[in-house]
Every structure is written in C-alpha cells, then in structure tokens.
C-alpha cells in the first residue's frame, strides 16, 4: 500500500478532495451489493413477503428506512436493489464494452468500407435517444431482468464504438504504430498488442462513469414499469411505488431515490477522479 501511496497517480487522485471519499463510497456500495444476504437486516424482505402488521412504518431503529406498504424493510430492499443494479451494470458493460470497443478499433484502424459501414450503423443507433431505444426494446419484450440487460446493452455499445474509433484513429498515426507496421507485424497484432493497451485508460474511466449511469438508466426504466417486476427489489420501481403515497409516507419514495442518487454520485465522482489521474484531454 505504501508503494501505491507514493506513486504519482495516487497523488493526482488524492489532490481532488472528492476522489478518495468517492472511492470509499463505491467500495461500500459494491460491498453492500456483494454481501447483501449477509448485510441486510431482513434479507427475506427482498422476496415475496408480506407483513401487513408492520406495513408503512416510519423510520425507526428496527427499520432505519421504514417499511413499505407490504411491510417489507426498505433498507434491506435498497441493499438488494443495489445488488440488482450492479449486476445489471456489470452484465450490460460486459456485453457492450467488448462489442463496442472491438467494432470501434477495427473501424478506426482499418478504415475503408469497414469504417464506413460500422460507423453508419453506430450513427443509426446513436440517433435514437438512448433511453428511448431501451424503452422501445423493453416495451417489445417481456419485462424481465435478462431482457432489461439486453435492451440496455443494445443502446450502450455505440458509445464505446465511437470512443474506440476516435482513439484508434488518432493512435494509428502515432510513431509506435508506424514502427510496428514497418517491421511487418500483422494488423491483428498491432490492434491487440499496440493500440488496445493505449486505449485502456480512457475506456476504463468511461466504464466507471457508466456504472453510475447504468444505475440511472435502469432506475428510469423500472420507474416506468419496464424493468424487473415485483417483488424483486429495484430502486426505480421502489420510487414509483412510493411516489403514489406521497407525501404522508414519504420514506417509501425518498430513501430509494436517495439511494439512486448516492450510487450515481459515487461512480460519477470516482470517474472524475480517475480522469484526473489518466489526464485524458483530447
């Protein structure tokens, strides 16, 4: 750890007073998500449990965030909600990033008709405002978590293609690429071994920022009822449910909303901090 704290990257990261707290926050959220069954006070409330005796209770020591109309502990549901969101984020990015980056690198480096075709397709996907595309796809499919992942991935990959495309195009003019070409390295090798590693910082920063935005988009979708279905806890649908009972039982909407905010904020700030280290200003 001491070697890390002496590295110049860490110093730059620390300079921004918000970076370290955001790192802590993100680690906390991830920990909550991973250890949800253990950490949540009422893990069974993440499922189809009803306890009408304890319904609509305001925040208390037993239920720090109160209970919802079915008597389920909101704190526990939020923790599981984070789990769902992060799983979604990881899967979506796990699909979108490899596809998007590969397409972008290939288009950017090889140019020609490959470039044209790939970028035109990318343009098409990017012409539909992201949320709209995801909603339309979700609307046409059954609202399950899996379908949600597909829909959001489908709208997410073009952003990585564009990023990778721009990076590939500018990197392909750099000396090290020309040198490799002169030596006679295969194009595939150049892409994978030379260009790709130089794209990693920018892509990684974007991934961090995107984890936050996936939470945003996913909660927007489920707010409309297009995401996971009850009783699975999801931050967006919790807000939607809770919104019906405003303002009396305000905790049912407010705490999930805050949870969304905090999640997006954490990843966003962390992404900013990473950008400071990697200093990508193109």
């Amino acid at each position, binding site marked *: 750890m001491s070697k890390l704290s002496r590295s110049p990257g860490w110093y730059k990261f620390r300079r921004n007073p918000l970076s370290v707290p955001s790192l802590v926050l993100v680690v906390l959220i991830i920990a909550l998500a991973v250890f949800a069954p253990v950490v949540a006070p009422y893990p069974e409330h993440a499922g189809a449990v009803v306890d009408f005796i304890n319904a609509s209770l305001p925040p208390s020591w037993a239920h720090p965030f109160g209970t919802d109309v079915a008597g389920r502990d909101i704190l526990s549901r939020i923790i599981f909600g984070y789990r769902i969101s992060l799983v979604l984020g990881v899967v979506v990015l796990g699909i979108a990033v490899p596809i998007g980056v590969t397409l972008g690198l290939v288009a950017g480096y090889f140019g020609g008709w490959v470039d044209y075709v790939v970028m035109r397709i990318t343009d098409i996907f990017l*012409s539909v405002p992201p949320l709209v595309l995801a909603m339309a796809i979700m*609307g046409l499919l059954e609202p399950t978590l899996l379908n949600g992942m597909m829909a959001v991935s489908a709208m997410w990959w073009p952003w990585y293609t564009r990023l990778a495309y721009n990076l590939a195009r500018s990197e392909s003019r750099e000396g090290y690429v020309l040198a490799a070409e002169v030596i006679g390295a295969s194009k595939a090798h150049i892409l994978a071994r030379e260009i790709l590693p130089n794209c990693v910082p920018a892509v990684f920063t974007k991934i961090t920022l995107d984890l936050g935005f996936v939470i945003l988009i996913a909660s927007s979708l489920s707010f409309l009822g297009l995401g996971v279905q009850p009783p699975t806890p999801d931050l967006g649908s919790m807000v939607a449910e809770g919104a019906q009972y405003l303002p009396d039982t305000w905790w049912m909407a407010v705490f999930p909303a805050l949870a969304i905010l905090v999640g997006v*904020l954490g990843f966003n700030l962390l992404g900013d901090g990473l950008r400071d280290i990697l200093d990508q200003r193109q």
Partner: protein
Amino acid sequence: MSSSLLKAFALRLWTSLLVLVGVSILIFCIARVIPGDPARIALGPDASEDQVIQLRERLHLNEPLPVQYLEFVRNFAAGDLGMSLYTRRPVTTDIGSFLPATLELVFLAGLLVAAIGIPVGVLAARYRDRGIDHVVRLLALLGVVTPSFVWAILLMLIFAFFAELLPVAGRLSEGVAPPPTIVGMYTIDALIAGQWTTFLDAARHMVLPGLALALSGIGQIARMTRASVAETYAAPYIEMAQAYGFPERRIASRYALRPAMIPTLTILGLDFANMLGAAFLVEQVFAWPGLARYGVQAILHKDLNAIVGVVLIVSAFFLIVNILVDMAIAWLNPRIRLEPRRAM
C-alpha cells in the same frame, strides 16, 4: 450564409435522412422480430384464434420481413403509419395531436438549459475556486446525477404539497379552455389569440415539468461551460488581450466566450438526446399529455405501430437538432468550415 456552410448543411441533411431510414429499418426489425405474436399481444389473451389470424392478415405479419418493410415504407410515404392498436386511431393522428405538447415542453427545457446553464458556468469560471464556484459545482453535480423522475417527484412534493404555488398535472387547469389551435402549443396559441389568462395558466403548468426536464441538462452545461471557459482563459490569446487592455467585459462576453462555447455546444446536442428520453418520465409524473406519455402508453400496451411511429419521430427530431448544433459549431469554429472535411 456562406457557401461552405450551405454545402455542409445540405450534406448533413442528406446523411441524416439516410440515418433516419436506417433507424426505421432498425426499429421495424426489432418490432417484428421479437418473440411473441404482436397480433395476439394486441388483442389480449381472450381473443379467439380466428381474430388473431385475421389481425395477422391485416397487418401483413405472415409475409417475409423485407416485404413488410416495403409495405411500411409505402404507407409512410403516403403519410400512413398504421393504426394504433390501443387508441384505435391512425398513429399519425395520435402523433399530430400529442407532439406539440412535448415540443412545447422540450423547447422550454432547452431554453432553460441554455439560459441558465451557460451564464452560471461562466460565473463559476470567473470566480474560480471561490464560494460561488463551489456552490455552482455542487448543484451542477447534483443535477447530473439525479434522475429526472426524482427531480419531478421532488418538485411535485415541494410545490404541490408543501407550498401550493404551481400546478402539478396537465397543461391547463380545470375550466380553462385551450386556445384555438394554430401551432398546438397552448402558450404560443394563447398569445396569438390574445388570451392572456389562458397563456398564464398554460405557462404556469409548464414550469414544473419544464424544470424537472431541464435540471440535469443545466448541470451538464454549467459544468462544461465552466471547464471550457476556464480553459479558454488560460490560453495565450486571452493573456494577450488582457495585456493589451481589452475591456474585461468585452473579453468575457465576446473574445473568450466564443471559443469557449464550442465544447459546450457539442454537449448541448447530447443533452438534448437525454432530455428527449427524460421527457418520457417527466410527462408520466406530471400527466402531461404529450408524445412521450403517449409513447409510454404505447410501450406498456405493446402497441407496435405506435412504438415505431414514436421512435421515428423522436429520432427525426433529434437528428434535426443535431444538424442545427453542428451548424452552430461550424459557424463558431472557422477551422471546421474552412478546412476540408473528411466525408463522414
């Protein structure tokens, strides 16, 4: 407009048209290829087998995909987007009646974003690292990370329940008749017809949804403007302007602002896309009878034709805004319009 700008505009128009065609193919394919029988879904689980078969015939669902698409294009050229399976009206009629409401809202939000976001960003850059800068950055950050539906609910809470200052549902209060339709936007139509009270009422209804829509964008633009202005001020040509004693006001409002606006405008286009998406949420919360709300209903009811129609219109609109933004950037940045552009 100089000829280079005109040429660029024509080119963009053409490529956007091609892209729109691509979008139509995309959404069409998605709509037809998804699992499930659209006809059955539309008719519901109680429909008889015959009804389903009939509907499938009517909708040409049994024919190969390219044929269906051509049918679609043919109809589209004639101005027909099919029937909404839910409202039982032609989709074009539905779109026509709901689009102006959404446009009205989105224009207002766009105006708010530019009119608030840019000056606030400039202010933060001017008083860099001092109190006001920190406040601005904090608020902007909150704007960016909070989903619009949360803003919508929050605003609703404050203004409907705690301080009943502004209306939270619909476009007009009960008992207020809409003005005679010219553009379809109540505020503009009311102004044209000289109906002052109607205008006020419509405007009041627009405030909260417009704000909810705009807050995220305001945050983004403020942040971008701040960064961009700060960066511009660090440039040698600004130091030179100061060394020559150019009036500070002139530097801020013209000399530094113009180059600083270029990155901001780029973000504005992106912001617009986000706003179009957010409209779907905000219109739901505020029961704003716009295209976005219609779209949500269409999606929830799996109304194929309507979904396709809505997506097309929204994309077309976004493409137009993109062209405008790109033209504005080209006007601002002489390098773009004068250096030969790679055919995109």
